[in-house]
């Protein structure tokens, strides 16, 4: 078994293409998604509807527009203009200050800001509102830290055109999911198919090795490498894009491990039905990658899909994994909160392992 794993590592380290996919891919993907999305919100055009027009609202507006992320496109006069401006498509966000903002803040230690965003592009909408809220919080801390009583500015964000968008959506969970799927499923299915193509599988079969030994020997290195990848992405998310893990890192890694095993068993299953590397590659592309990207909620919100696609999305292991990662990373929840999703992935894993061991042939036909 040890010999098998060593040999597998040789294969991986000697093939620059697989090295590229294994280690180049995660970095490139994270950077790509990361910068594509941050670019999106550089110089985002916004409008302000200020019913109060006092010092504080002016200061907050200045603070937001000087942040570098936003450009003030227009000052609105009344609520009726909001919908119109959004429809024109010039602006991505409207900030609404309630009337007597400064006074209320002084008297009640509380005032309201509404952040309206165009959530037909949910990723951007999410980022914009969270940036705006961040700037307002920041302002509040600097300005009122000397006050004895807590002062609260309540930013209330409202997603327009996509009101059902519940979860905070970020690219790191999606990228982790894609990478783990790609590396685990695609690489293993290709590497097993390669043994078939080269004829070495014949020799492996005509040896005392049991099918599970061949399978475990083939996938072990990929478990390890995928795991390294998951950690790389988390580190990059943190250091390059400042995205901390709110919840337990250990829990997150354990969940990743579970997902990796699931993806590997899928990969093995694919390899059992493909006779060549090309077929394995195509199958993983179409059967795994595209659904993962399109149906998991990574790019397109599941709530917006036609009902039938929503149903199909339930069958996507990646959908559940993205939920888990998001919840742990961004909401900081524990296992009690994601046990259902975890259970679903466990069941899927068991199912695919069962299927691939059953399908893995001890003979050639």
């Amino acid at each position, binding site marked *: 078994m040890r010999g*098998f794993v060593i040999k597998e590592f040789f294969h991986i380290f*000697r093939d620059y293409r697989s090295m590229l996919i294994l280690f180049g891919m995660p970095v490139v993907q994270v950077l790509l998604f990361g910068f594509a999305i941050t670019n999106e919100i550089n110089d985002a055009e916004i409008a302000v509807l200020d019913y109060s027009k006092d010092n504080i609202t002016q200061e907050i507006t200045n603070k937001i527009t000087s942040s570098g992320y936003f450009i003030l496109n227009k000052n609105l006069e009344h609520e009726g203009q909001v919908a119109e401006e959004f429809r024109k498509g010039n602006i991505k966000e409207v900030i609404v200050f309630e009337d007597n903002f400064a006074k209320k803040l002084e008297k009640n230690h509380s005032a309201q800001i509404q952040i309206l965003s165009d959530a037909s592009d949910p990723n951007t909408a999410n980022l914009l509102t969270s940036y705006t809220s961040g700037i307002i919080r920041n302002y509040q801390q600097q300005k009122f830290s000397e006050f004895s009583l807590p002062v609260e500015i309540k930013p209330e964000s409202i997603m327009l055109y996509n009101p059902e968008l519940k979860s905070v959506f970020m690219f790191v969970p999606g990228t982790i999911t894609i990478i783990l799927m790609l590396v685990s499923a695609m690489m293993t299915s290709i590497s097993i198919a390669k043994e078939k193509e080269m004829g070495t599988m014949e020799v492996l079969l005509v040896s005392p090795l049991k099918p599970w030994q061949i399978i475990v020997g083939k996938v072990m290195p990929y478990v390890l490498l995928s795991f390294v990848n998951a950690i790389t992405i988390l580190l990059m998310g943190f250091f390059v894009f400042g995205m901390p893990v709110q919840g337990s890192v250990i829990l997150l890694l354990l969940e990743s491990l579970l997902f990796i095993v699931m993806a590997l068993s899928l990969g093995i299953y694919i390899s059992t039905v493909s006779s060549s590397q090309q077929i394995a590659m195509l199958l993983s592309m179409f059967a795994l990658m595209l659904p993962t990207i399109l149906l998991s909620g990574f790019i397109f919100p599941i709530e917006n899909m036609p009902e039938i696609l929503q149903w199909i999305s339930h069958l996507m292991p990646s959908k559940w994994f993205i939920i888990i990662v998001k919840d742990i990373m961004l909401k900081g929840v524990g296992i009690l909160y994601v046990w259902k999703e975890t259970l679903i992935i466990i069941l899927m894993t068991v199912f695919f392992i069962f299927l691939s061991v059953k399908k893995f042939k001890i*003979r050639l036909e």
Partner: protein
Amino acid sequence: MNYPVAIKNVSKSYRKVKALSNISFEVNKGELFGIIGPDGAGKSTLFRILVTLLKPDEGEAFVEGYNVVNQFKEIRKIVGYMPGRFSLYQDLSVEENMNFFASIFKTTVKENYHLVKDIYSQIEPFKTRLAGKLSGGMKQKLALSCALIHSPTVLFLDEPTTGVDAVSRKEFWEMLQRLKQQGITILVSTPYMDEAGLCDRVALIQNGEIMEIDSPEGIIGNYTKNLYKVKTDKMFEIINDLRDYQYTDTAYRFGDSIHFTSKQENPDSDELLSYLQGKGHDNVQINEIKPDVEDCFMALM
């Protein structure tokens, strides 16, 4: 059931194509047994059945007394198998290939070095070279070393010499002769008829059927026709002239001459001589010769 390999009425089809039909034979212990036939004759299918990679549709096959269908696990422990394409890991070095194949049989190269020494020592100077960068002959030696490393009692070599040059082929057969002396039973398939003479016994196979099984001498002894070697000055034209000759049964090129058989009961070589001279051939030589396995194979086709 003392035979290392025994096959009884085995048939195998792929969809509609019959790959093997009703094959039966036994191989004796320590025998070098050749399966001789062109591509597509069913050689690989037969080997794959014997090494438990395929199940026969009909009939039974045994290796060292174990049934290839339900006792495949036992068989996989004791056979060495070298598939048609040398199944080596091209991106691993010579040494790494050896270590890997030793490890899957739970042994080490060190432990069984004496088994492969004769062959492996020839490629050992290149042990850090990747298998993909070896010449055909060296790949062949490495593949054989890998198939031997776990001390198998029966060795299955599927076309080990195909596409390999004449020198490497000759060396390979010399290695097999030495292996045989260690008591290993060896089954080897080949499309090269001239290699038949190097086996103890051979099966001539064509279109999934065994045409004859015997020692090379026996096969040649069973050839009943009178075979003539014909040579003249004009070797390009002779084949057509012989085909026009009324008594010609067969006329095939064989190296620098023509092998000729006649339809006549008692062939008259003088008449052939005068026929050829009449066609303008000079220096006609007609000699009756002993057939080789290739002549026999063609006669059986």
